[in-house]
């Protein structure tokens, strides 16, 4: 293709239908995951029906970690290149991750109360997860409170990289320390593992939550780009008025 060939339109006609297809596919996957979580997976022998919370509790944490991972990578890219698009990805990752971690933090105590006899234990896994929620909430509050400018995304990116250290520690906490929280069922010790149909239910739910997380991050990213465009237009108008 020569360099003089006409450039394609900014938004191809087909592009608008792709997000809708992805949303529909994710909704279908969420329904399949719900079926497997409530009906397809066998009832656990010790805890009974309440163990089925597992199929939402674990994927919510996984989706949150992935979203915070997006935030961390985008923050590194922002610091290296000062790219506003990278900063937009960082904001999107933090906000969506916070929503999924809220699901994990609320479903956990609902599961713990009948099984442990208490709503909450200050054990490493629970404490680190709560700390993670507070850290990313403070990250978003900081972005709201500081005036827009070059310092705000830089400060936020530095904080985000610092906060990301909590992700691997949180993941490894139930491997490093014997805690009230159950040991890992996947990639744990020789005693870890799940019944085949339970594993299928978990994997489908993990896929559904991850797809939903990706769609929400993408939607939030587009909104952040729109905000950047609004700021740019306001500056242009202010210059025109001078």
């Amino acid at each position, binding site marked *: 293709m020569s360099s003089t060939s006409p450039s394609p339109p900014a938004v191809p006609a087909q592009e608008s239908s792709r997000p809708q297809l992805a949303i529909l596919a994710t909704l279908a996957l969420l329904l399949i995951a719900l079926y497997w979580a409530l009906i397809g997976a066998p009832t656990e022998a010790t805890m009974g029906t309440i163990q089925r919370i597992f199929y939402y509790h674990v994927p919510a944490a996984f989706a949150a970690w992935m979203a915070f991972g997006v935030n961390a990578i985008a923050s590194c890219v922002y610091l290296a290149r000062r790219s506003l698009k990278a900063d937009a990805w960082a904001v999107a990752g933090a906000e969506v991750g916070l929503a999924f971690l809220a699901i994990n933090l609320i479903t956990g105590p609902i599961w713990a109360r009948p099984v442990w006899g208490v709503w909450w234990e200050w054990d490493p896994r629970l404490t680190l997860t709560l700390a993670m929620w507070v850290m990313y909430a403070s990250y978003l509050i900081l972005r709201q409170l500081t005036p827009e400018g070059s310092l705000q995304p830089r400060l936020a990116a530095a904080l985000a990289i610092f906060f990301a250290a909590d992700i691997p520690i949180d993941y490894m906490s139930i491997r490093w320390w014997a805690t009230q929280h159950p040991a890992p069922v996947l990639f744990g010790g020789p005693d870890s593992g799940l019944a085949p149909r339970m594993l299928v239910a978990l994997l489908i739910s993990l896929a559904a939550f991850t797809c939903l997380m990706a769609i929400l991050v993408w939607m939030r990213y587009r*909104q952040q780009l729109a905000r950047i465009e609004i700021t740019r237009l306001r500056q242009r108008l202010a210059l025109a008025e001078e």
Partner: protein
Amino acid sequence: MGSLVAAYTVAWVILMIYVLTLAARQKKLRQALAQLQAQVEAAPAAPSQAAHAK
């Protein structure tokens, strides 16, 4: 059974609230963007209109 229903309901409610928040924000941003784009398009015409009026 009650705890299971509560946990799943909470998960869906949080997701629905977040999606509705995103939708409301999207509507506001779209309106603001359209308004600003119209203002920007009108802005360069203002000096020539003023000159024409003179």
